[in-house]
């Protein structure tokens, strides 16, 4: 197993480098650079000499490939550059935002798994039944809701009207602040999990090995647990891994709505201010996280299902 994990991590390196190159090139073709956006808003006039000095200071006066070479070299030593805005190393502002982001996405996933998987399982036990109909209505609605609107409505109902939870902010890690954003972010994956679990369980229940397991005289609970749930889990986990990207996209908007100090809100703020080194670093970090999640998913699948052989 360990060599496999190591191999997968190694495979992630070229993808990360390719993403870094793509993002780097994208931002190098921007019409208008940072120095000129500082002066073009009409509030301040910077003369050409100052613009040239800023470009030299940030190393923006060299050709793209030379700059990317330097950038990639620095990436290997975890030097993500200097923020245009704060003039601090990017890694500083990034590192203090990783934990809040992780907290939020883990809480949302826990919520989604705790409700979505049982819902899908119950729905699949009697396809076409009352529970099935209800849970699939919940699922298709959950996938169609704009997450930030749901967040706004939750904020209005549970923070402003009822006063049960704080309306926004991080509250120095107080878990009460985590509830509303986590629910707002978790509803879409909950819906997805319910649908995927239902489909996976239905598919596995019709498989030959389940009929065999029943024929051998296993109790229904044992059949469900050892034969259906285990096999369905592999399908559910794989879908979850692939869809994790859209959950991360949702997190960006939810963090901004609830003024949550995570990577997502840093990314949005930096995009608005054209703080390119920070934008690049945020995207790289999010892609890295996405890749790691998928590696973890593959490893989990192999642990659950011994038939999966990884070479």
């Amino acid at each position, binding site marked *: 197993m360990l060599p496999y994990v190591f191999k997968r991590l190694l495979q992630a390196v070229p*993808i990360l480098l390719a993403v870094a190159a793509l993002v780097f090139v994208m931002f190098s073709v921007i019409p208008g650079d940072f120095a000129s956006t500082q002066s073009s808003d009409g509030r301040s006039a910077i003369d050409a000499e100052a613009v040239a000095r800023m470009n030299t200071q940030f190393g923006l006066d060299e050709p793209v490939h030379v700059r990317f070479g330097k950038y990639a070299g620095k990436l290997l030593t975890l030097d993500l550059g200097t923020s245009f805005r704060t003039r601090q190393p990017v890694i500083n502002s990034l590192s203090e935002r990783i934990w809040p982001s992780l907290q939020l996405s883990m809480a949302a996933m826990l919520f989604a798994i705790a409700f979505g998987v049982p819902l899908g399982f119950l729905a699949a036990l009697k396809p076409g039944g009352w529970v099935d109909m209800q849970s699939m209505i919940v699922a298709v609605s959950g996938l169609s809701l704009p997450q930030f609107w749901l967040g706004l409505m939750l904020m209005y109902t549970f923070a402003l009207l009822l006063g049960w939870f704080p309306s926004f902010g991080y509250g120095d890690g107080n878990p009460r602040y985590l509830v509303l954003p986590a629910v707002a972010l978790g509803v879409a994956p909950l819906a997805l999990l319910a649908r995927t679990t239902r489909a996976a369980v239905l598919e596995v229940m019709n498989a030959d090995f389940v009929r065999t397991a029943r024929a051998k005289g296993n109790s229904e609970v044992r059949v469900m647990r050892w034969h259906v749930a285990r096999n369905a889990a592999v399908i559910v986990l794989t879908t979850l891994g692939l869809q994790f990207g859209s959950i991360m996209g949702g997190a960006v908007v939810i963090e901004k709505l609830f003024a949550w100090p995570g990577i997502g809100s840093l990314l949005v703020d930096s995009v608005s201010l054209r703080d390119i080194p920070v934008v690049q670093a945020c995207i790289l970090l999010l892609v890295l996280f996405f890749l790691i999640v998928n590696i973890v998913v593959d490893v989990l699948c192999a642990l659950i299902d011994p038939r999966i052989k990884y070479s």
Partner: protein
Amino acid sequence: MKFRANLWIGGTLFAAVIVGGTLAPWLAHTDPVMDANLMNAEMPPGSEFWFGTDAQGRGIYSRVLYGARISLTVGIVSQLINTLIGVALGLSAGYWGGWWDDFVNGLTNLMLSIPSLIFALAIMAILQPGLTSLLIALGLTNWSYTCRLSRAATLSIKQQGYVEAARSFGSGNTRIMLKQILPNIAGPIIVIGTLGMGGAVLAEAALSFLGLGIRPPFPSWGSMLSDARDQITTAPWISVFPGLAIFMTVLGLNLLGDGLRDILDPQSQSRRA
């Protein structure tokens, strides 16, 4: 043939949005942008303003109707771009194979490793906010599934006898791709396109909500919600209706996509939830 509830409900919802957006000038009795009147600010829903008014005194009913135009344009056009890119790359990669196939595969894997909303956000950072930029950002970032599907389907179809037959009759490669292969992979592609349209409507709303898509005063549902956030304590109805409009549109498209899948792509019904 059984009654397909999702197809009919989804189709009706989506048709209602199209009719609302198209007939907005006749259905709305106020202008969505120009009819600002601070005397009418933050009026709750009533007989004069059915959905109430916003902080500038503009009728929300009218703004929601006109907002459908932006959402539909973004949803339909960006998804057409995605489908064109995905089919062109996937079909040609599956058909020709070789280095082109490797290249397309690499590109698809790269795209799949960047969450699409985050990629679109990065593109919006480069372009100026506005409709054209949104179409570019959302049209270039969501073609990987279509591409994978077209490639896989092409690989299996090009082995079929009728493709061989067409070739022996002297059909050129382009003709075979367009006349023999494309019609046979169209069903699943239409399904993905419909579901993707719902995703694009959500993405447009999210980007506009973040201030990176359609900017005020133009009535995009996302930017309306972004404005409404400040008045949520005093005038919650400003937040309710644009959100409901997004929800109904996306729900309609998702149900429509599911319904179309049952008809056009029956074997995948249980595989992809």
